[in-house]
Structures are given as structure tokens and as C-alpha cells.
């Protein structure tokens, strides 16, 4: 039962860019602030611990993909644990991606309103985003990841540029002390649950058929490492620039950072420059999670194509994103549920599926050669 979805070609560089961007875009929202609330001055250690643990999750995703070559985690799951449990796993992945998509869309639209277009109705902004997302998802994964590959330099460059421009404000390295923040035990516990921050690494399991096993492993590891590095770096800079009681209250930390740039009379008020880059980054992330949702659903429903699902899913996302009453609610749901329990669908399910596959001796090197037709 092997069929091919029209995902097109995937280069290693493009896949790396796609996954890295999809993960790090979280830091455009309130995540640095939420981490500062929980971890205090040790917020960055939480990211490091979470990142390290995410590698364990990634190991199982990669192992699963290697055991079932040419298949995504969805089909691999069905083969390993049977159609019923497999569908439940697929549903969990689907919900994870949808939740990520909806919450990000709502929060990012709110960012735009608060920061730039206070008079514009949110539906107009959200609809504007959705049109682009639906269109780019419709064209397919290749288009999204090529865009990502093309723009990742700009995106990382924009973060680097802000960092350089903010050097005059980095006088207070003491803001990283006391070293253990809210306490080693709390930091460790949060580190474990906040692996959910890296849940989007699950996309590796979806693009598995498009890359060779070795390439896939390399893409997964490098993009996760890059994401951890960038996010830790941003958190450290954030904590240094905004001393603790302040870092725990900013709704849009990165934006507040960009607004702070002040190098003499001339180089100031330059936050508008970064907004373009951030919107493009957000669109890539949104399109990637939209694709992931549609692809998981299509494969779970055994549809040969995912395109017919894109438009209905778009409407669904649009509608659900407005059921959240307010921006603070969206932030709370994101932080308290998605980025606290997201590791269950993103890491635990693939790991369980893999372990069951090993126990039931499903998949493996012998059988896949016969099955794969690529």
C-alpha cells in the first residue's frame, strides 16, 4: 500500500531551514517571557535541558522512520500498532499540529494588532495570513521549504543584527544570576515538560520518504541543534537586557528588544525594519504546520492527495482561532497546554509506536526493501 503524495523534491538544506524556522518562530511570541516567569534567571537552562531531552524524542522518530523506510510516521504507526491505534496516534499528531497552527496564528495576529495596526479588525489580519498560508500549502511542501531555505539567512541575520545593535544594553550579565533561578528541581522539571517547545521536530517524520535515512538523520539533528542554539541565545540576551521582574512581563519580548535599539540619535526606532522578516518567518512556520496538519490527516484517511483538505482546514483554523476569547487566553492555552503537554503527541507517541514495532517485530531492514518502490 504505497502511494505517493505530490510533495516534490526535498533538499537537505531546505528541510533543515524549514524545520529550524518552524521551531524557532515560537520565540517571536511570549515564550521567552513565560520561561522567565517559570525559570527566573535560569530560564535559558530550561531551554537547554528541554533541547537535550528532545534529542531522545528525535532518536525515536528517526528510528521509526529508519525501520519503515519510504513511509511517514503515520503509515509506519499503522503498520506497527495496527490501524486502530495507528489512527489514534495520527490523530494525536494532527491535533498537535493544528493546535500549534491555531494558537500561533491567533497570537501572531494579536502581535500585529498591538504593535502595528491597532485599529484594524483581527479578522482582516488573520484572513490575510490565511490566504497566504493556504496558497503556499496548496502549492506544496517543496515551495514552502524552498522559501525557507532561501530566507533562513535573512531570518538568522535579522536576529544577529538586533543582537549587535543591542550590545550597548548588554551591560548587565549579572542578570543571569542567581544561577539556578527558581531552583534546580523546578528548572529540571520544567526542562522536561518544555520539550514541547521542540515538538515541531515531528515534521522530520513526515518528510522521511523524501530523504534518505542518513540525510534525514542529519537534517533532524542539525535543525534541532540549531533551534536549541538560537532559542537559548535569544533567551540569554533577553534576560540580560531586561532584568528579571521586567523580563517576566513583556508580551512580545523580541519586539520589545527591537524597540530598544538606540545608537545615538540616528540609529533608533528601527523595529519596523524587522517586522517584514518576522512576518515572513511566521508565514513559513504557519504554512509548515498547515502542511503537516493536512498531510497527517490525508495519510490517516488514506487519501492520495492532501490538497482538497487545505481549504476546509483553513476555514476550520480561522474559526477556531476566534473561539479563544482574548490574547492573554491564547497565551495561557499555548503555554499551559500546548507547550506543556505537546511532548506527548510529539515525542511519546512516536517512541511508543517504535517500541511496539520492535516488540512485534514489524518493519525492519528485511521487509522494507521489498516494500519500498523508490
Amino acid at each position: 500500500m504505497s502511494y505517493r503524495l505530490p510533495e516534490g523534491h526535498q533538499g537537505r538544506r531546505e528541510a533543515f531551514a524549514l524545520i529550524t524556522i518552524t521551531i524557532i518562530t515560537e520565540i517571536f511570541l511570549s515564550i521567552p517571557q513565560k520561561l522567565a516567569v517559570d525559570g527566573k534567571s535560569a530560564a535559558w537552562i530550561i531551554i537547554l535541558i528541554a533541547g537535550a531531552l528532545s534529542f531522545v524524542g528525535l532518536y525515536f522518530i528517526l528510528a521509526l522512520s529508519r525501520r519503515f523506510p519510504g513511509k511517514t510516521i503515520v503509515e509506519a504507526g499503522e503498520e506497527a500498532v495496527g490501524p486502530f491505534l495507528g489512527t489514534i496516534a495520527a490523530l494525536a499528531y494532527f491535533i498537535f499540529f493544528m493546535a500549534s497552527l491555531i494558537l500561533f496564528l491567533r497570537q501572531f495576529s494579536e502581535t500585529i494588532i498591538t504593535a502595528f495596526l491597532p485599529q484594524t479588525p483581527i479578522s482582516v489580519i488573520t484572513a490575510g495570513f490565511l490566504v497566504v498560508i493556504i496558497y503556499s500549502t496548496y502549492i506544496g511542501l517543496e515551495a514552502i521549504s524552498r522559501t525557507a531555505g532561501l530566507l533562513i539567512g535573512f531570518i538568522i541575520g535579522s536576529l544577529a543584527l538586533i543582537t549587535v545593535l543591542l550590545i550597548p544594553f548588554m551591560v548587565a550579565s549579572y542578570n543571569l544570576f542567581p544561577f539556578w533561578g527558581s531552583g534546580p528541581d523546578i528548572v529540571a522539571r520544567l526542562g522536561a515538560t518544555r520539550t514541547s517547545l521542540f515538538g515541531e521536530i515531528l515534521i522530520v517524520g513526515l518528510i522521511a520518504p523524501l530523504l534518505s535515512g542518513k540525510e534525514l538523520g542529519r537534517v533532524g539533528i542539525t535543525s534541532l541543534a540549531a533551534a536549541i542554539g538560537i532559542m537559548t541565545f535569544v533567551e540569554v540576551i533577553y534576560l540580560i537586557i531586561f532584568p528579571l521582574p521586567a523580563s517576566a512581563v513583556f508580551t512580545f519580548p523580541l519586539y520589545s528588544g527591537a524597540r530598544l535599539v538606540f545608537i545615538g540619535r540616528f540609529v533608533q526606532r528601527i523595529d519596523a525594519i524587522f517586522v517584514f522578516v518576522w512576518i515572513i518567518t511566521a508565514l513559513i512556520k504557519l504554512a509548515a504546520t498547515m502542511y503537516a496538519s493536512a498531510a497527517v490527516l490525508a495519510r490517516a484517511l488514506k487519501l492520495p492527495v492532501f490538497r482538497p483538505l487545505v481549504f476546509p482546514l483553513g476555514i476550520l483554523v480561522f474559526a477556531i482561532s476566534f473561539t479563544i476569547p482574548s490574547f492573554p487566553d491564547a497565551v495561557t492555552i499555548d503555554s499551559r497546554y500546548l507547550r506543556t503537554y505537546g511532548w506527548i503527541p510529539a515525542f511519546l507517541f512516536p517512541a511508543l509506536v517504535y517500541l511496539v514495532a520492535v516488540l512485534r517485530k514489524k518493519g525492519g531492514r528485511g521487509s522494507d526493501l521489498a516494500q519500498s518502490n523508490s
Partner: protein
Amino acid sequence: MTWRKVTASLLVLLLLALTVTTTGCWDRREPEDLAFVITLGLDTAPNKQVLLTVQIALPKRLAGGAGPGGGGGGGGGVGPSPVSSGTTFVLSVVAPSIPTALNLINTNVGRMVNLDHNRLIVIGEDMARKNFSRFLAVVVFPEIRRTTFLITTRGRAADFIEANTPFIEANPAKYIEELTTANFFSGLIPLSQLHQFLSAAESYGQEAITILADVTKAGLKPKGQTDFKKQIEEAMKKAPTIALETIPFIAGEIPRAGGNRVEFVGAAVYKGARLVGFLNGSETRAAAALRGEFRRGFILVPNPLRKGFFVIIELSQARPVSVKVRINKGIPEINVRVTMEGNIDAIQGGGNFSVNPAKRQLERAVEKRLTQIANAVVTKAQSQFQADIFGFGDRGARRLFRTWDEWTRYKWLSQFPQARVKVQTSFRVRRIGLQFAPPKPVTGR
């Protein structure tokens, strides 16, 4: 042409039309419809209300630049008339909060009041002494930036804003931005943007200081029309007797004649968001050195070779300040190391300091003087203000604690007044100017 092509081209046309009709969407705002506030002033008003003063730019006049100097220069006052007069106007209202005050202003100003270009917030002394954190909440406004300069004025903010009529710049806000940056380099005022103020005021390890400014008491009348001679005589009378204290003034009291009516010198010391006192120019400079923010400034030391004369040194901070804290039976012991370097600028009374032991002698004299000044300001902060304006807690004590809770429970800010502070300074002469020794006119030939 197929239908497909027709629909496609219609769609393209529609999209093109959209680009024209939806520019800026709901947030389209023409600059001509906005009144840009460049300075905000906060004062107390009866019944816990706020007296909000705004200085609004008149863009057309600002853009003109030339000011009223042009044709009618002949008659009028004694002094030159400031170029800024007529480029802005000042308006004050009383309201329970800043946003409502802005609405109130709009009942009079024919354009939408906008804070996007606000450069400066001035806090009146009365407001500052009464803990203005209630009005500080205005920073959640997206229009207010943390890079806005924050100034505390002795007296009323409204009077200060009204009196500020700079000469060189047409734009009063630009003037203040330039002045604060230039003055900061001399160490006579602290760096005080909203960001630094809030960072310190919210910290468990330091207290905030802001720029101190005031309208001069030197008898300057508005628009610079005043008796220059009389002013100079007054200034001479007020000149300090001890030449060692370089700038023992706080804003408003500098003996001078002529110029803008406002002046910036010294610092306002806060505990939390409550004003507790002032530092004069020299003390502010010493505090800056202890905070590691000192850039460049002059200091007088007695000439070690000739009694009754002074050597003038241009100082700068050579290395970041090192703050080592030990907590001994609950009482902090603070060891501060300030490393300075400098150039000899003038040697009154003569002497060649380019070689040892004279050079070493001079360096010792400077170190002694620096330690004296630093100890004086530390004592003042500990006994008079009981405020850690140097950030010793953040710089030194924080890293002694393991967790955030332990750190905040220690309550550094209330421990600081009892702390034993030891300041060590070291100074090296780096350059001696264009001559090894000062000119020596020969007398009694």
C-alpha cells in the same frame, strides 16, 4: 481568449485595485492629521489626579529650521531670541490618568494627539516624592518607548517644559536628546532612559537615579532678555569657595549668565519609584564611576610639588568596576575596585610629572582624591538615602545566591545601609598632552 484567461486577468485587476484601496487598512493615519507630542510632563494635581503637560511640535515651523531670526533682527531684546520659540506649543490639563488627559487635550488640539515621537518624560518633584508608579503604568502604551529620556525636575514639570527654549536647536526635544548624550559623557548626569530607570527601580539589587534638571535661579528672564552684567556679578558671588569640588551644584543653581533657562546637572535618587534626594554634579560623577558608567571628566588634585596649586587631570574609566561582596554574619562586606586612567591637562604652579617619582606621586594624589570622593558619595547613599544607587547588589551580591527566592528573601536593599563598603582606586597617567612641562614665563630678569 479562453474563459480561464479572462477570469485570471480579472482577478489580477481586482488585486491591483485592492493595493490602491486598502493602503494601511484601518490604520491609515496621515501625518497632517496627527499632533506629535515631543515632551510629556507629569505633576501632581489635587485629588490624586495628574497635571499632564504636553509639548506639541509644530512640524511646519520645525522643518523651516531658520526660526524667527531672519528679517526683523533690528529691534527687540538684549540677547538673541531662541530659535525654538514658535516651533512648539505647551499645553497642560488635569485628569485622573494619562490616557484620559490625552483625550482631554484632544478637546482643544485639532489633531489626533500621538505619542510616537515623544522623546522625553519630565517628572515634577512633587510627583516624584509621592511615588509616581501609578502613572508609570503608561509604559504599557505601545506608543511609549523604553528609550524615552526621563528627567526629574526640582519644581514643576510644567514650568520646566515651558521654560525650555534652546538656542542652537530648533527642536526642544532634539536639544534635550543631544544635551543628555553630551552631558552623560562628562558624568555630570546619569544615563537615564526609561529603560535604565525601570530596570533599576524594579531590581532587587539596586535603586534608580535619573537626570536632574531645573529652571535656572540665576535670574534669567524669558526669551533671554535680561541684564547680562548683573547676572555675571551674581554668578561671581555664588562661585564655590573650595576649588577642589569641581561641580558642587545641583540643577538650577549653577552660577552663570546667559543661555537657555533650563540646565541639567546632578541626579535625582529614587527608592523604588519614590524620590528621596539629589546628588550634585561631583557626586553624580563619583556614583557613575562606582557604577562603571563614567566616561570622561576633569578632576582637580593638589599639585604634589607646589603647595596651593592644582593639577587638572582628564579621567576615564580604564576597566569595568569590580565589586566583590561577602556576607559576614548577615552583614554584607563590599569591596569595590575602581580602575581609572587619565591625561594631565594642566599643571598649575608647574612641575614635570612625566618622570618618576613625580609621576608616581601625582598618581597617588589622584588615587587619594578619588577614594575620598567615592567614600563621600557612598556614605551619603548609605546614611542619607539608604539606597544602593551603585548597583552593588546586582553587580556583586547576586551571584552569591543559588536561587531567585534566596536572593529576594535576603532583601539586599534594606541590608545595604549597614554594609561595610571599602573602595579601592587605582590611577595611571597615560598621556601628558603636547608638552612635557607647562610653559614657564621668566620673571624678575
